[in-house]
């Protein structure tokens, strides 16, 4: 193990030196173009007022000499933070370490808060707050709401259910959270029962009904098409028999279900290959970020 430690240390030092070299060449810097924004107040009866601020648009390094284009500290910092986070997670491959654990904890915190913020602004504010208090919503966050909009008191029901749901966090009386949960689960069960039966049961049967033997319009046998249809139907039926639990696997059934399991294995083989393919694509996506966006290779 001593030897391997040495090798890995050399690799890491070499990697670090390469990074420094790339950074010294000016890579890993982000430039932005300044775009001035001028906005007129929307209320015509109010006093005329113009609001100004600047928007920034990221540009490629080639444009850095142009006017309005400047170095962006916040985005450059961001890029390096992103690169550091990427390497920190990759460090888990060498072994569990504090840097990995640190970034992982950051990830858990950020992602939970992110989901909360998005749910808050998109669903809760637009579909609950704006429906229950349209007047207030108009003067705070959503000036575009129709001024004639009336509160829709029907939305008090989901509000109450939601509060009951959050009750789960309290140490006492958390059984009350079962009511919204029951609504949630009942609704899921209802829509799933119908759509799965319609699309995945009846719909799949419909797509599978086809003739074993196919003829061309001139009456000659299309034997390749016939063979493929037959394989297809036999495949579906034999797999269904494998998953049929009311009869023992004896006699003919034994052979049919054996055929079924082979079909399943071919299915899983394809699934295996596609999953592998996807995982590799994810890695190349990440390396594209490191090489192109950060190191500028």
């Amino acid at each position, binding site marked *: 193990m001593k030897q391997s430690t040495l090798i890995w240390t050399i690799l890491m030092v070499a990697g670090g030196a390469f990074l420094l070299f790339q950074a010294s060449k000016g890579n890993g810097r982000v430039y932005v173009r300044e775009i001035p*924004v001028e906005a007129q*107040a929307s209320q015509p009866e109010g006093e005329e*007022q113009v609001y100004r601020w600047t*928007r920034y648009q990221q540009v490629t390094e080639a444009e850095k000499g142009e006017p309005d284009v400047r170095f962006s500290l*916040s985005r450059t*910092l961001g890029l390096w*933070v992103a690169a550091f*986070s990427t390497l920190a*997670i990759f460090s888990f491959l060498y072994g569990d370490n504090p840097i990995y654990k*640190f970034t992982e904890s*950051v*990830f*858990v*915190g*950020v992602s*939970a808060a*992110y*989901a909360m*913020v998005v*749910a*808050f602004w998109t669903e*809760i504010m637009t579909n*609950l707050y704006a429906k229950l208090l349209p007047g207030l919503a108009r003067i*705070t966050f959503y*000036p575009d709401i129709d001024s004639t909009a009336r509160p829709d008191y029907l939305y008090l*029901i989901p509000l109450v259910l*939601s509060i009951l*749901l959050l009750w*789960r966090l309290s140490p006492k009386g*958390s059984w009350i959270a*079962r009511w919204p949960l*029951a*609504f*949630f*689960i*009942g*609704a*899921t069960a*209802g*829509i*799933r*029962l119908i759509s799965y*039966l319609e*699309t*995945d*049961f009846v719909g*799949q049967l419909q797509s599978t009904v086809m003739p074993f033997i196919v003829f061309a319009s001139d009456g000659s046998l299309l034997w390749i098409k016939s063979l493929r249809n037959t394989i*297809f139907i036999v*495949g579906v039926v034999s*797999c269904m028999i494998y998953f049929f639990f009311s009869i023992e696997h004896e006699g003919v059934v034994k052979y049919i279900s054996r055929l*079924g399991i082979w079909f*399943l*294995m071919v*299915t*899983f083989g394809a699934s*295996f290959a596609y999953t*592998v393919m996807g995982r*590799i694509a*994810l890695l190349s*996506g990440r390396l594209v970020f490191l090489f192109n966006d950060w190191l500028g290779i």
Partner: protein
Amino acid sequence: MKRTIPLLISAITGFVLIGTAFIPLFVDWGNIAMSWFNLLAAFAFILGGGNLLKMQLQKISAQQPGWGYAAVTLIAFFITLFVGLAKVGVHPNVKFPEFAWSGDYLQEDGVFWWLFEYIFTPLSATMFALLAFYISSAAFRAFRAKNTEATILLIIAVIILLGRTYASVWLTGWFPDEFIIGESGIKYSDFNLQNLSEIIMEDFTTPGMRAIKIGIALGVASTSLKVLLGVDRSYLGSDQEA
């Protein structure tokens, strides 16, 4: 009370939604139920955040091993939550500049956007990219042709892995465009790796998946039915919990 009402709620909701498929009058009720459902789903995100908070706080107060990391999680959580809810660094909507809060919370250059772009994105993407490495070591150390089934699976996987890249052209691109037996309609080139992998996907994988889908559909239907009828009450939890 603790059990009957939830059972009633789930049964009524479920059967109304089933009814929407057959009785057009129910469609509007179904839509209302779905809009409530979506609101509850949004609150579930908040519940998730709350749960995280609770657990990390417990960890810290009990000084469990690794509580320092729990503190890191909490700090990250609160910073993100604050900048997101307060729309820090977000300019208002151009159409309504006098409303300071009318801007888009994920606006480019906002602090929340920065956190998402430069912390969340690389972390989540890299977590998943690790899987490519795990698959490579599992390929070497775990995927064995132990029995007929595993052998078929691995052979098919190899054919498709090759057939979906340019290797198929290198290895089997030379298969001639000639009929195998007379005018049979089958050419040698129909069996090059690319075509072979397509044949496998269309004629073998699709029927297998179809049978699996039919099975899953029946399973989902019967599970849903059991929930609606109150036969399966596992979602209510055990009585001691209350």
